[in-house]
């Protein structure tokens, strides 16, 4: 177990570096909300999900919905590191007509289960997937990562009630609770606290995790897998822009671009070159 956690830590570190490079190579982008989801995606794609890069369309795989579709670069990078396609393909991020648009597109890239980008829609789709798996008595799970900003959207709560009604214990949602949205602090723009109580009231099992501690995330997700009868949500406490000190906790870095000198300094801060 300890070895697995160490491995996930190293993978997360490399995922952060590679994601950062991909976004920067694209001329900038959604640094903030991508860097906050690094450990979550690392744990899911390298520690939890049943997927096979050699059989990306295998019906028996687990499903993943990145409801905050603007964190696409993290998912692209994780898929590349997982062997779905070469890491060098990430140079095409945001390029016209490439298979790596800013918001993920399932028709362009195998390994993406759902195209997203319009916030608030993912949980409904995840519910449909989980209903299908349950109706067929399949043991797979549906995982979804939601941004905290998108929890303003009413559709999320329509879906939350649906998951509860149909007892979707094969659905595990992870909220990237970085406390920021485009215009500022979530609690200033549209307060969503008490968040734990809201999910509980909607009929979900709720747990909390340190969203940058792979051990905490791994424990929460495997715990959720075992809980029966209700859908599960993990509120992962994260830092927007995590890993780049001048971006951390700054809503201004929801998206943006950096210059060459900043890029070099950032890579040094991220420990690039130290290897996995």
């Amino acid at each position, binding site marked *: 177990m300890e070895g697995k956690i160490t491995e996930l830590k190293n993978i997360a570190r490399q995922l952060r570096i590679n994601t950062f490079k991909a976004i920067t190579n694209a001329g900038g982008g959604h640094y903030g909300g991508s860097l906050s989801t690094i450990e979550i995606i690392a744990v899911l794609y390298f520690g939890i999900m049943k997927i096979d890069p050699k059989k990306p369309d295998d019906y028996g795989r687990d499903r993943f919905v990145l409801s905050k579709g603007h964190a696409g670069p993290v998912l692209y990078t994780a898929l590349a590191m997982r062997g779905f396609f070469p890491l060098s393909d990430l140079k095409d991020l945001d390029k016209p007509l490439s298979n790596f648009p800013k918001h993920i597109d399932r028709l362009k890239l195998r390994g993406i289960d*759902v*195209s997203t*980008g*319009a916030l608030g829609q993912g949980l409904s789709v995840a519910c449909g997937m989980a209903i*299908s798996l349950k109706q067929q008595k399949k043991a797979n799970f549906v995982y979804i990562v939601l941004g905290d900003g998108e929890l303003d959207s009413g559709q999320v709560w329509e879906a939350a009630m649906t998951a509860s009604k149909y007892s979707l214990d094969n659905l595990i949602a992870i909220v990237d609770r970085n406390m920021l949205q485009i215009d500022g602090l979530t609690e200033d723009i549209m307060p969503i606290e008490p968040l734990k109580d809201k999910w509980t009231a909607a009929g979900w099992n709720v747990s909390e995790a340190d969203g940058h501690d792979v051990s905490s995330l791994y424990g929460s997700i495997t715990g959720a897998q075992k809980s029966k009868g209700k859908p599960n949500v993990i509120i992962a406490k994260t830092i927007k822009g995590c890993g780049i000190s001048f971006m951390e906790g700054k809503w201004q870095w929801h998206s943006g671009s950096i210059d060459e000198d900043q890029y070099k300094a950032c890579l040094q801060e991220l420990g690039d070159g130290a290897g996995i």
Partner: protein
Amino acid sequence: MKTELKPCAVTYGATLTELGKANPDIFVLEADLMKASGTRPFMEAFPDRHINVGVAEQNLVGVAAGLAAMGRIPFACTMANFLSQRACDQVTISVALNKFNVKLVGCYSGLSQEKNGATHISIMDVVIMRCLPNMKVIIPSDHRELADVLTFASKDIGPLYLRMPRVLPENLFDNSYRFSFDKGYQIGTGSDLTIISNGISSSVTVQALDGLKKEGINARLIHLPVVKPVDAGLILKAAAETGAIITIEDHSVYGGLGGLISEMVSESCGAIVTRIGLNDVFGLTANLDFQLNYFGISVENIVKTAKDLLRKKKNKYYQ
């Protein structure tokens, strides 16, 4: 309207129940309007494939998308106005952009909402759905055609919008006619003008040919259930041969059937087109007959419009 009309809910519910027996992947989704759609028999037969999300149309569409992502065949039904307007972004992103195999059914479409009035009468569902890449749009005119369209939809792969009024006649056309996805249905070969309709309006237009004949006008009728992808050959041939077209729909004249035909004709042979429908107005609180007459979906108005149109055609369109 002289034709006897029957609730579409009967055919929708019964046909899906039959299709559901043969195909275990068919799901039915509701947003608290099972009474309108008529899928209670499906729910009783297949409770684990019948999902009701309550009054939450955006979620309805999203859940359907998720089922389709798993290779299932969801039929998601709610009133046409809510499906196309309230859930427009979910239809656009979760269904059309993803190219998921979701069957969207807009029930109680158009004027068939009757006294529910402006809040419920869908006047832009056709134009919204028609604009969406990957979306097919079908508007049947009788129960036999509705059943055929549902069967077609269950086998076809990809997003599809079915506009379903509250009521339709049992059997509007000759027994020889059967729904074809690729072809519109032409009645008569008149060369003075072409009338194009679908949905509930075809119940009126089939009666108009005789009325026109009495006035010495030799028209042809095209019943066009599939507006996307459209049978362009049939339309453009009619445009070229008659030079004058009347479109009729219980929908806004902007962008629906009238808009479609105008676009096609203006890019080809340049026939003159008159669009009958709701012209920049909302629907009314009134029964169906009153509304159809009020908005000109009547034999009398078709005859009057035809005379005006032929005069314009004769005068080279200037008067």
